[in-house]
């Protein structure tokens, strides 16, 4: 039984991605010895944690067949909100909780647009993204709001051993949500809704309820990610976080989460994130010009999708004679 599972895993997508990560890491290490230095690995873990945290909420939504393209700007505005709240002299745990509550409200707005008014999540959240971006500019007056609460800094820039605090929190979220998706009835309902909405409905599950919970969840996690980022850079700013949701989505899809819902898991998304960030970090390590880096990041994504495409075709062909 265990042997079968190991075999299945080795033939699976996650194993393939891990192999690619090893190859990428080996190449960059040969090019620049300091790529594998503790300092660089810490930097890598720190850079993963922002889009990684967003990917937890977004990954669940993607599996359920939805998306929250506003999660980046939700994080952005949350960073400013937490900075403003801390500016009033409020203790940081209270400020953080209020910010997460604010994130829940933003998630509720998405849930209302998608489930009550019936808009497509893709369009509705693009719209809200723009609204939040504008609001972020308004409440920050277009400039960064600095944070002077020293204790709060630790959430963003503390560390245990070589593990930065944001990375630990992200990893914990990944672990908890992976367990929820795999072992709870709610988690299985998320897959059911993403895999076949009408089957879910006819089996007595409410897809609207499930996706509403996930939208609120994504709003809360995005707000948390934005607050942690603000703690790391000691300020909330109208240009923070924005855009990280695209990395999160790309990593999730790369890791096997279907964009149309119903399949994949957060484990894959996590490995996808590591790959994207390890590659981006490596481009820095070999000193590639910044403009080229942007192009190269796109190329690796497309290359990974191509590998996946041919792999999938092989699998479909292998299945054909049976049916």
């Amino acid at each position: 039984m265990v042997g079968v599972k190991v075999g299945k895993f080795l033939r699976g997508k996650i194993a393939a991605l891990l192999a690619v990560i090893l190859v990428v890491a080996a190449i960059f290490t040969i090019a620049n010895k300091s790529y594998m230095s503790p300092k660089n690995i810490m930097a890598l873990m720190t850079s993963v944690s922002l889009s990684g945290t967003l990917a937890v909420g977004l990954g669940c939504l993607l599996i359920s067949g939805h998306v929250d393209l506003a999660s980046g700007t939700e994080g952005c505005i949350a960073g400013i909100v937490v900075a403003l709240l801390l500016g009033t002299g409020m203790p940081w745990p209270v400020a953080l909780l209020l910010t997460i509550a604010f994130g829940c409200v933003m998630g509720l707005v998405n849930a209302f647009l998608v489930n009550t008014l019936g808009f497509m999540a893709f369009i509705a959240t693009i719209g809200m993204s723009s609204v939040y971006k504008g609001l972020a500019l308004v409440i920050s007056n277009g400039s960064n709001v600095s944070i002077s609460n020293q204790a709060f800094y630790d959430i963003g820039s503390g560390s245990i051993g070589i593990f930065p605090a944001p990375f630990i929190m992200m990893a914990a979220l990944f672990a908890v949500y992976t367990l929820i998706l795999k072992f709870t009835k709610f988690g299985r309902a998320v897959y059911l809704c993403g895999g076949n909405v009408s089957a879910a409905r006819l089996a007595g599950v409410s897809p609207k309820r499930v996706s509403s919970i996930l939208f609120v969840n994504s709003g809360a996690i995005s707000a948390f990610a934005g607050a942690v980022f603000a703690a790391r850079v000691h300020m909330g700013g109208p240009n923070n976080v924005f855009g990280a949701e695209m990395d999160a989505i790309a990593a999730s899809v790369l890791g096997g989460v279907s964009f149309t819902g119903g399949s994949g898991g957060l484990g894959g998304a996590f490995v996808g994130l590591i790959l994207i960030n390890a590659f981006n970090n490596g481009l820095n390590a070999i000193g590639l010009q910044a403009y080229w880096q942007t192009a190269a990041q796109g190329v690796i994504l497309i290359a990974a999708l191509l590998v996946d495409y041919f792999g999938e075709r092989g699998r479909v062909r292998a299945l054909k004679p049976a049916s």
Partner: protein
Amino acid sequence: MDGHIEFTGIGKLFPGVQALADVSFRAESGQALALLGENGAGKSTLLKILSGDVRPDSGAISIDGRPQNFQSPLDALRAGVSVIYQERQLVPTGSVAENIFAGDLPGRFGIVDYGALRARTAEIVGKFGLNIDPDEPVGRLPIARQQMVEIMKAYRRDSAVIAFDEPTASLTDSEIAVLFRIIREMKANGKIIIYVSHRLSEIFQISDRIAVLKDGRLVTTFETSASNEDELIRAMVGRDLGDTYANLSRNDKFGDTLLEARELETEYIRKVSFALRRGEVLGFAGLVGAGRTELARAIFGADRVLSGSVIFNGEEVSFKSPKDAIAAGIALCPEDRKEQGLVLFRSIRDNIAMPVLQKLKRLLFLDRRADQKLAESAIERYGIRTTGADKLVAELSGGNQQKVILGRWTSEKIETKLLILDEPTKGIDVGTKAEVYQIICDFAKQGIGVIFISSELTEVINVADRILVMKGGRITGELARAEATEENVLALAMSE
């Protein structure tokens, strides 16, 4: 064991169609009630109301004398009603076990007990006597096995009322035997079975009573043991629309052969041969899934032809795509006009001009005046009820949408030699239907050959000059209009 479900005065109106009207009947515990009727008789709507998916406009359902008011599928499930749909409601990426227990996984405190899930699934699979791995993703099973998983889902719920919608459509004989064994077991356990099918032989095997629906109304109910096939077919058909057809002004001058298919085969049709003359209306009758739409697609170049040949307009043709077929003068009005026929959120004018844009060009730009003229002439010719050519097609009624499609393929800028109409009167009201019939006859008068596919027996045998009946991808019979009756066409369409 004295449980029963009672339907009282169920009525449902969909835009333009009375799907159900005043349907009342009762089904008893320990018995199977078969619902029989032609396509569109209202069987599926009735099941959707039973499952809480659709709410009736009038009437009520009661179980064991307690009135039910299902607002959602969950309400129906809680009241002990399971419906097994013809379109499988499965998650292909999910395991067999998760699909069978969808929405009701075993476990406590919200945590799934995978051990119990697997064990209980293995138990159910064992009862069915099938070799299916509970952990296998459903999408990897053959279609027939997927259908069995769908049935296991309802079996697992142990509901008091279990309804089957054409359950055998994709099953092989060995699985049908399993299904019937399970249904008999359910009956012995006092379940109420509702069995929808148009396979008469099955109905005689499994049911105790038969309710016949026609045009949304309950015609009659029979004791299965006291009825026979002829009686059932007569009950399914009986209706009089005589005058509409008697008043049609038909074409009586046929030209030479326009289209000939010789032993045509695709993935879906088997050795189909027939000929169509200019000015002739050739009807294709059969049940849903008989291969009529697939035949049309083969001729139109939309499906790959595996063997056989098509001779069109005097020469052998092999269309690589619908574009070639259109260029040769063939037009197809697909069954699903909203999805495949029309651009709903464009104007009538744009929809009519679509295939002839090249001909409406003046220099580089579209000639808006020619465009407008084309649309206005179609509106006038076919009496399309609209405020103008600018109106969005989505705002028109079903019948008028159909006229827009007909107008597109018969405008003066296009030379259509063969018109293929797939269910052209689906979902449109009786008055407009009569207009569409006359339009079809008018095409024939212009020398156009018409292939008229319809699942409504009355119209196909009364409008077409000649009727071909299909079943299982083959032509099972040919009848002239004079000799065709609903009884003999239906017998051919259902022949084993």
